[in-house]
């Protein structure tokens, strides 16, 4: 057993311990940390004359159950049908996107675009529809795929709201500052990115709500 081979075995063993856990930065760091720990421990045991097999099986015995650790890292977790959840979230996106792109299309229609407004609205709408279609196909292929997801969405929701706010504020500032300088921009257009990017926090919040409250995402008998 070379050192490299041992480290490789440890790597796959630790990967296996975290199988089915949604990947986050914290989880990746914990894996890396445990890997270093186990490598140290095996090297130490072998230096004391313990065989590699014995050293490894001692480690396996110690690391039996990681539920407590993973729960501590992720907050509380829940097992859900992930493909179904994605499909629901993106379907919600299509509903919002349809209303949004109709409004955008009407706005462009009345701002000297006429019927060529559809060339803006249709691609915009496809941006919502295609991911939803892909999610639908994926769901049909693997409807019962489950995974553990964290119930704590605050970080993601905060990030999405912050992102939305920053981009929107910048757009509004640019819109208002330059409203009279060029003839092309003599209109209020900043509502378009504001409403468009709002899709992001909306989807994050919708997903968080579904995972926490939607019974049909919960596998039975678990």
């Amino acid at each position, binding site marked *: 057993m070379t050192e490299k081979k041992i480290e490789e075995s440890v790597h796959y063993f630790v990967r296996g311990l975290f199988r089915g856990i949604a990947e986050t930065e914290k989880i990746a*760091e*914990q894996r*890396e*940390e*445990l*890997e*270093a*720990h*186990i*490598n*140290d*421990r095996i090297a*130490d*045991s072998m230096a004391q004359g313990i065989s590699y097999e014995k050293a490894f099986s*001692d480690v396996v*015995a*110690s*690391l*039996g*159950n*990681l539920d*407590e*650790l993973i729960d*501590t*890292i992720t907050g509380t977790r829940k097992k859900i049908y992930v493909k179904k959840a994605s499909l629901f979230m993106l379907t919600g996106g299509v509903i919002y996107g349809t209303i949004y792109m109709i409004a955008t299309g009407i706005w462009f229609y009345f701002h000297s675009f006429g019927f060529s407004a559809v060339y803006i609205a249709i691609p915009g709408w496809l941006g919502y529809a295609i991911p939803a279609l892909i999610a639908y196909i994926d769901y049909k292929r693997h409807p019962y795929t489950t995974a553990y997801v964290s119930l704590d969405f605050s970080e993601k929701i905060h990030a999405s709201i912050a992102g939305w706010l920053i981009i929107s504020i910048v757009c509004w500032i640019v819109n208002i500052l330059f409203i009279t300088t060029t003839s092309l921009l003599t209109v209020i257009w900043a509502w378009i990115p504001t409403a468009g990017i709002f899709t992001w926090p909306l989807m994050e919040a919708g997903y968080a709500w579904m995972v926490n409250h939607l019974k049909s995402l919960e596998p039975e008998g678990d």
Partner: protein
Amino acid sequence: MKDKNDTIGSDIIRGHIDTIVLTLLAEKDRYGYEVYKEVLTRSEGAYELKEPSLYSAFRRLEGQGYIRAYWGEETQGGRRKYYAITDTGRDYCAQLRAEWQVAKRILDTILGEN
């Protein structure tokens, strides 16, 4: 190194993992395996603080702001994550140790060990 946590007393010790970890970090910054090994050595092999419990304690204490983690700069092998106790961590550690002394004294008195 087998089945140490099946020995009598391990359940009682389990309730004091935070005290153990904070005490060891109050002495100096250490990485995970160092803490693991130190517990084993100091207990003369009688108590093994298993990895899931140890790292749960790290994550918990980190979340509560009693310790903070930083990555070391090892050149060979993987990098290591070190832990340092914070000021609030020192206060909390002192409090936990004082509580243990009180509990120990009371138990000793009740059980007639003195």
